[in-house]
């Protein structure tokens, strides 16, 4: 039973299109994240949600809009896709308490914009 699942795993799309990536966690965690991993493997946080509320927005272009309908889901919608958006996007979740600080990651979505 997958702890953090995101769909799709691969996404190829043309410039200018709008696309969404979905993420669900079944761990009962309060906090969820979106990270972007670029071609050099650098992982950078984009957004963080705690109990459905946005708590971190790391200067991400407003073409990226996260949505958390409930604390088990955090989706990422991207408008007007650009070539530079090509990357692997990871969803993650954590509990944020001392006894359980590990972040669990989904398998990533490789987005290719052509």
């Amino acid at each position, binding site marked *: 039973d997958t702890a953090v699942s995101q769909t799709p795993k691969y996404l190829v799309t043309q410039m200018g299109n709008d696309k969404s990536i979905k993420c669900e966690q079944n761990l009962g965690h309060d*906090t969820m*994240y979106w*990270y972007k991993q670029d071609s*050099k*493997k*650098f*992982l*950078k*946080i984009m957004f*963080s949600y*705690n109990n459905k509320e946005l*708590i*971190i927005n790391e200067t991400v272009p407003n073409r990226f809009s996260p949505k958390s309908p409930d604390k088990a889901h955090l989706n990422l919608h991207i408008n007007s896709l650009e070539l530079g958006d090509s990357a*692997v996007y*990871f969803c*993650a979740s*954590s509990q*944020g*308490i*001392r006894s359980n*600080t*590990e*972040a669990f*990651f989904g*398998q*990533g979505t*490789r987005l290719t914009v052509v």
Partner: protein
Amino acid sequence: AQTVTQSQPEMSVQEAETVTLSCTYDTSESDYYLFWYKQPPSRQMILVIRQEAYKQQNATENRFSVNFQKAAKSFSLKISDSQLGDAAMYFCAWLLLTSGTYKYIFGTGTRLKVLA
């Protein structure tokens, strides 16, 4: 600003040998957590080991151990008896838990090659 630095872009180790991956971080906080994550070619991020900053004892998990030097802000990972399956990208990560901001900051990663 908090930063995490991994100065070794790539490391190689012979199978069954020991290798140490370096990580330094910069923070003025005293209460935080440090992690090493492994990312094999499958892309999945897997937790290798975790260290609480308030604990002086170095964490160990089977063949994996850390050397945590809080004053020096250093957190290195030692892999003993290296196996072919250890080949992956390794990321050092830092988490400040008490700020309420819930942000894991990652280093740039070290690619580990294991030679048969």
